[in-house]
């Protein structure tokens, strides 16, 4: 069950011509796929297109009605390979994953696909995870498109443009026998808006029909001599066909006048940012009418030289707005201008920063800078000669704390890393590597465990060089998502084959949690359309691991610590795998809270645990914080002149996971924590017992208070 349900929203996918669709970018893309007559869809989740996978999963009925096959692929590589269906068969297909890391994983399949070429339109919906909000290395997918010759679409970020470009993308793909990637940036995935819907199209050839009538053509197999022929085909046939299609169908757009002192060449995705900067300079109105010639590239690869040169003919200088690096488009166009013997000034990375996102401020500054150089008379007076005094606002940089993402309240991974930290206190620091997923937050305070991540499912593999044994053993962490994605073979298989004397901890939280709680092979949920409940332990033993320990309660910090200790000290010198399983708390709460509330309403007995801190027992040393970092465990400053330091405090968002108590016990921290179990709808006997207990306590308390001085208000 995914984090977000789109069951209500996906009903809009049934809309037909004449209706207006209103919603998020990812929903619009899904609708566009159906209107394009896709025969199959697939993909692998990851921000910013995780929700696209959720939409597809929630739309499975609608997809089924149209005869569209949906694969929730095991990895981006599997998703990329799925597009093979469009090589021999005239079936349109689309898969989605994040870029550029998803493209990295899929690159083997994509390169083969691009060499073979496609008959049916093949499209990758690529969520480009770049700039603010990104969680990965900052690179461009553009380079991949170029090296394998896959066309790269970068539509203007509004719903009608995106929808149109999905449809045009399939046509382009078929016209040039080349797969395409449609790139959407983080905000465009979540942008809301509206567009005029069309009727959904059933695929002209369904995958079922194709299966009944198999086809093959050896010329499409990537083997010599065909692989050499494919390369020639790419240049002699597919590229010219694509350029012709792009030009003839006006995929790239021109705005503003034909001529001007400065012409802007813009990636489609940058269009809105450019217009905003022009609006702020008084050079465009709010509907985007502008006094500056714009050449907007909804297709950023391949470039169409004659179309570009035609634009360049009308202007005295150019500004190329291309986010990220290297500046492929700027290089390409500079070469085209040189070949054409043109010498007009080309601006781009001279006024824009080479690295980093083109934010509103960057865009405004760079365009202003370029206009100052080439057409200062276009700028409004105050920009040319600023005289307004800028306000003096104090710099808060030293005060505002950084706030990276971390483990959620009640996360089952927290006690694992608390145990790891305690083990390191006993046995010293170890070589530890992390993986992709929630578990990587262990690298941040308060745990600061693990100093590297080499890719999804590659945690144990990235310790390979250290697996020959020695004074200390290397430890690696791997989530269940990473395990099934790539970890079983690349990491665990690698350990087995190389007789690795190292420890791998597989954290099984029942979901692909970091991407929004999608199911994986070992999820415990019953999923009507997928096979779940496949055991990680069986897989690990099946691949040859002899030393396997399974823990089914990660909150048992003592046992976790003992198991880690055992793995690090046992004389056994082969691979050691610990599988620590507890359900992702976010998903557990989402599943259980409505049921619990219903049970309480219905008058059934429900025990709701929550933790608390005795603030007069807490000394404010914050030792517990350094083994937790839980959002619900915070600090509070007491109104007590005798106390210098704030004390621990647990707020109402506590889910009673037990970590605080377990850690306080295992690390022998302090007796400040208590667990309060509030029993809703207790039985009569229970209530009677509670009353008796309260009676005895009160009697004892009163007895003692009669013999001493007490300040009842002083503890509050």
């Amino acid at each position, binding site marked *: 069950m995914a984090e977000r349900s789109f069951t209500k929203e996906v009903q809009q996918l049934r809309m037909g011509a004449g209706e207006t669709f209103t919603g998020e970018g990812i929903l619009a893309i899904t609708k566009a796929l159906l209107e394009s007559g896709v025969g199959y869809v697939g993909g692998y989740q990851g921000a910013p297109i995780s*929700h696209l996978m959720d939409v597809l999963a929630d739309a499975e009925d609608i997809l089924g009605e149209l005869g569209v096959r949906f694969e929730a692929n095991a990895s981006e590589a599997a998703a990329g390979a799925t597009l093979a269906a469009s090589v021999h068969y005239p079936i349109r297909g689309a898969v989605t994953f994040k870029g550029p890391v998803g493209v990295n994983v899929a690159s083997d399949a994509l390169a083969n696909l691009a060499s073979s070429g496609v008959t049916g339109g093949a499209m990758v919906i690529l969520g480009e995870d770049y700039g603010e909000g990104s969680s990965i290395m900052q690179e461009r997918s553009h380079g991949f498109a170029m090296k394998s010759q896959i066309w790269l679409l970068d539509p203007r970020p509004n719903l009608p443009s995106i929808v149109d470009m999905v449809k045009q993308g399939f046509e382009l793909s078929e016209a040039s026998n080349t797969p395409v990637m449609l790139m959407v*940036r983080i*905000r*465009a995935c979540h*942008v809301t808006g509206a567009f005029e819907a069309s009727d959904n199209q059933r695929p002209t050839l369904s995958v079922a029909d194709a299966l009944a009538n198999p086809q093959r053509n050896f010329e499409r197999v990537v083997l010599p001599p065909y692989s050499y022929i494919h390369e020639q085909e790419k240049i002699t046939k597919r590229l010219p066909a694509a350029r012709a299609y792009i030009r003839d169908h006006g995929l790239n757009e021109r705005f503003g006048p034909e001529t001007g002192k400065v012409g802007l060449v813009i990636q489609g995705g940058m269009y809105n940012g450019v217009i*905003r900067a022009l*609006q*702020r*300079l008084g050079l465009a109105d*709010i*509907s985007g009418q502008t006094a500056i010639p714009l050449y907007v590239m909804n297709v950023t690869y391949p470039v169409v030289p004659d179309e570009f040169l035609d634009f360049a003919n009308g202007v005295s200088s150019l500004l190329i707005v291309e986010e990220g690096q290297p500046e492929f488009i700027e290089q390409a166009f500079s070469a085209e201008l040189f070949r054409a013997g043109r010498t007009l000034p080309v601006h781009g990375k001279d006024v824009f920063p080479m690295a980093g996102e083109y934010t*509103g401020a960057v865009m405004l*500054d760079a365009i202003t800078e370029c206009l100052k150089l080439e057409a200062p008379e276009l700028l409004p007076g105050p*920009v040319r000669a600023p005289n307004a005094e*800028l*306000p003096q*606002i*104090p*710099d*808060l940089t030293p*005060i505002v*704390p*950084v706030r990276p993402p*971390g483990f959620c309240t009640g996360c089952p991974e927290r006690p694992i890393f608390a145990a790891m930290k305690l083990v390191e206190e006993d046995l010293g620091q170890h070589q530890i590597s992390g993986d992709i997923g929630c578990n990587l937050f262990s690298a941040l*305070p*308060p745990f600061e465990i693990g100093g590297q991540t080499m890719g999804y499912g590659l945690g144990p593999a990235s310790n390979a060089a250290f697996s020959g044994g020695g004074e200390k053993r290397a430890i690696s962490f791997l989530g269940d998502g990473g395990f099934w994605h790539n970890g079983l073979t690349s990491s665990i298989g690698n350990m087995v084959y190389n007789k690795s004397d190292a420890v791998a901890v597989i954290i099984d939280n029942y979901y692909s949690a*970091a991407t929004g709680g999608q199911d994986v092979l070992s999820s415990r949920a019953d999923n009507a359309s997928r096979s779940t409940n496949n055991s990680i332990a069986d897989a690990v033993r099946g691949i040859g691991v002899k030393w396997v320990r399974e823990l089914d309660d990660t909150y048992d910090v003592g046992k976790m610590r003992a198991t880690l200790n055992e793995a690090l000290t046992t004389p056994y010198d082969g691979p050691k795998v610990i599988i620590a399983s507890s359900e992702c708390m976010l998903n557990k709460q989402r599943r259980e809270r409505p049921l619990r509330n219903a049970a309480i309403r219905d008058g059934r007995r429900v025990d709701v645990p929550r933790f608390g801190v005795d603030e007069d*027992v807490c000394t404010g040393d*914050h030792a517990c*914080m350094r083994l937790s*970092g839980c959002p619900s*465990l*915070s*600090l509070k*400053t007491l109104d007590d002149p*005798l106390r210098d330091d*704030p004390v621990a405090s647990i707020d109402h968002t506590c889910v009673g996971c037990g970590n605080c108590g377990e850690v306080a016990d295992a690390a*022998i921290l302090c*007796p400040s*924590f*208590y*667990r*309060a179990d*509030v*029993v*809703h709808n207790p039985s009569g006997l229970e209530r009677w017992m*509670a009353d008796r*207990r*309260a009676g005895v*306590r009160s009697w*004892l308390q*009163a007895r003692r*208070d009669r*013999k001493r*001085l007490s*300040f009842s*208000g*002083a*503890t*509050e």
Partner: protein
Amino acid sequence: MNVQSLGIAPADADTSRAILKVVIMAVGGQGGGVLSGWIEAAARLDGRAVQMTSVAGVAQRTGATIYYIEIAPEGSDIPVFSLAPAAGDVDVLIAAEMMEAGRAIQRGFVTPDRTTLIASTHRALAVSEKVVPGDGVAQSDAVRGAAEIASARLIMADMEGLAVSAGSVISASLLGALAASGALPFARETYETAIRNAQKGVDASLAAFAAGFDAALADPDGTLASPKPSASTQPQGPDALIDKWQALVARVAGYPGPIQDITMAGLRKVVEFQDADYGATYLDRFETILALEGAHADPVLSQEAAKHIANAMAYDDVIGVADKKTRQSRFDRIDTEMRQTNTQVMQLTEYMHPRAEEIVGLMPARLGHWAGARPKVMGGVDWLFNRGRRIRSDGIIGFGMLYAVAGLRRFRLGSLRHAIEVEHIESWLERVRETADRDYALAVEIVKCRRLIKGYSDTHARGLSKFDRVLAGADLVNGRDDAADWVRRLREAALQDEAGTALDGAMETVHSFTETSDL
């Protein structure tokens, strides 16, 4: 003071001014998506073109998140909206937490020419603030000060508190404050309809919406003081003990005015910890310091001593913990915090982990010393007691055990732990007394070092070791003009991290110049 650069776009040329730009900055899990959804819905209800975007992380619940809404002017077609906010170009900034308001100001999203800043004053502490052994909490006052300068209009209140009291979440109270601000041209009813149409927790959301609305109107910048509950100063107990208490109070009444309050607080703490006679001992100890005050106009030394002697004398032992855990006032407090109705029953579980040290500490001093000197005995005691114990303190047996341990109070002053504590207090105070004549400021700093000793078991041991090291540092700088300043620096370094890395660095510095000056 550093000044950040702002967007340079001149207001009169800017055609995009007609578009209303709203930024929401929140901590993951606060419902920023819900809030922006409501605002978007309200704009659509008003018949306007609107666009919402976000860079919300998918799942994790603790990172900073940002949502952005652009609203077209009335009667306009769909304009070209921007997908991201720009510095210097924001009409309304909603910060769902105080430091997120600071982050917004830092990023230039709040400018004095136009931005209405609506911020919740509550804090969701970042991990970096929580892990500091001392007080690492960022200062909200600095953010408030900057907000007053940076914003055109400021609305601040504890929106989280308002929402929680209304049984809802902060997104609803913030929407109410937005409605009250009038920063967007929508009627209150339009916002309320947006909440109703979302069909989720409607009643609670509307209640929190109203609370936010009212708070924004009644006290826009949240500066009206909230009344503080005053702790009771008059103890309850048998008449004979009350008389003893009165005698102690009379003694304090004879002290100089400025130190009476803190001494009373200290006195209450030690009397609560043990008894009235122990309170008299506290005053005896305190008076040896007070006598050093001499002609000092500002009696800092006695003020600090009143506080730290009380904290030192009311040390954290097993008896004290058991006593605090079994008091009626504690059960009442937890009851108020946890239980919603009287029909619910509550069970309490304590997490105790006594070690041999704690057990031996309870023994009479001579026996304890004997045992402590014999590893085999200690090992045996450890084997018997050292394990985690879950105690049901609401139950008769669990409560009874804790009650019995708390009852050991009458033997406390003869225990090994007490002997150790007294020795430590006396040597510390002796040092203060020796120093005060020569270097008053240094004496104050030595008193304050007592703050380093806190926590239980290992944490306590680490605190003691830091205390010892800082005082060793005090010996090194003794006699210098800036000795007090150095001890303050050492203490602050000791409070920065658990392992004492900052303290190591500071000590190294002290060593470097004390050694060279010897040459």
